[in-house]
């Protein structure tokens, strides 16, 4: 395969602003960002609560969550597929092969990451803040907002890790989204399809675009967290 042709294809895609290509990129971002957003709503408070609570079986829960961080995406996809299929328990919702199904699958992939990293970050912060927060009467769940806010820069990194996992995976979105052209075709499923069609230049071109997008998002987040870290000391 000619690498020159591959880079040419990638360049043409990015510069040409082909509407189909833009639709794929925007769907990918919309699905993944929505999934990360929902995972944050679920994972941040739960991770913080897990950091502050003590109960029998807590170590087992933590081990399970850490293991879930490595859950193969296609397994998450399969579970969501079985749930959302018309013959499955949530079939009447008619969500299989929709962007919503892809969001659900990615939330399942991202939530364990957010919970596990949040737990670690909040636990460390709590060790530092505990005396003062307890002194001013913030104990247990009441301490969570303070800890989440003060850990915001480290937590942004946790969300970024979740974003990385969701944006790179193909197994789950392929199974539950169906890779429908113009509807549930994302960057990763398009790459899979173009590879199977033997159009390696286009596939790698899309791959390069994905890498560039991920780089840009990481650079922005990194810059923001640097500025923030300087402020927070």
């Amino acid at each position: 395969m000619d690498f020159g042709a591959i880079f040419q294809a990638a360049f043409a895609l990015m510069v040409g602003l082909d509407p189909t290509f833009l639709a794929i990129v925007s769907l990918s971002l919309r699905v993944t960002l929505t999934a990360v957003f929902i995972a944050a709503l679920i994972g941040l408070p739960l991770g913080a609560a897990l950091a502050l609570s003590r109960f029998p079986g807590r170590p087992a829960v933590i081990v399970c969550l850490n293991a879930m961080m490595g859950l193969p995406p296609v397994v998450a996809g399969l579970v969501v597929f079985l749930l959302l299929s018309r013959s499955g328990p949530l079939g009447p919702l008619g969500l299989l092969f929709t962007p919503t199904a892809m969001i659900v699958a990615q939330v399942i992939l991202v939530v364990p990451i957010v919970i596990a990293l949040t737990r670690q970050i909040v636990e460390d912060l709590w060790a530092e803040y505990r005396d003062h927060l307890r002194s001013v009467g913030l104990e247990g769940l009441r301490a969570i907002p303070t800890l989440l806010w003060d850990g915001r820069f480290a937590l942004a990194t946790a969300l970024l890790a979740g974003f990385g996992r969701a944006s790179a995976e193909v197994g789950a979105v392929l199974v539950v989204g169906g890779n429908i052209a113009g509807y549930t075709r994302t960057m990763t499923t398009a790459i899979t399809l173009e590879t199977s069609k033997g159009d390696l230049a286009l596939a790698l071109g899309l791959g390069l675009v994905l890498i560039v997008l991920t780089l840009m998002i990481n650079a922005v987040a990194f810059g923001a967290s640097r500025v923030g870290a300087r402020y927070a000391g």
Partner: protein
Amino acid sequence: MRDTASILPLRVENASFQGEGRLLIDAVSFTIPAGGLTVLLGPNGAGKSLVLRLCHGLLEPSAGSVRWAYSGAGGIKRHAMVFQKPIMLRRSVEANVTHALAAAGLAGAERRQRCGEALARFGLSERATQPARLLSGGEQQRLAIARAWALRPELLFLDEPTSQLDPAATRQIEELLAGLVAEGITVMMSTHDLGQARRLARRVLFLHRGRLVEDRDAAEFFAGPQAEEARAFLAGELIW
């Protein structure tokens, strides 16, 4: 609405504390009436910090009791604590103060007003919008005291507040504490610094290996302590 009944005196009766299978505080009894500055003196590891934490409610005594004359309304504490290493939230100076006030349940307008007063009172107004964690050590401890002061405590606990500061900053904190006592706030602080105890204390509680071995007026204590451990400590012979 502020309650007028005082939470003082604080009565500690036969309070013990067990940690890691050992008796760390052994049946300590004393009373803190309103007014003045009481120094909890003793070598490192005597249990000074634990006694303060038991009083402030951060620890529960394993035996005995810690009782306030009046437990206050609405569960709001009227005693505050400043720690050895200032705990600064990752926020601005003023946000550190308003956060504590919010935690105490005060409304926004009152938070801002009290915060402004506190920063002015402790000379931190110009620093209001700066990140608290970028202040110098002395400024951080001053902010910690301002933050506690804003809560309008009747009794303020300080755990070795100057042990990490240079002499100039230490002197400044000591002046602040004298000012708080003059204002009518009752202060109880721990220190292992004899000079500081001499300069500040009205009363001394001398603690050794988890036991309260002497409880006397400061002038009398420094003139001639009764307990042998206290004499050795004053002579600089008792390390722990």
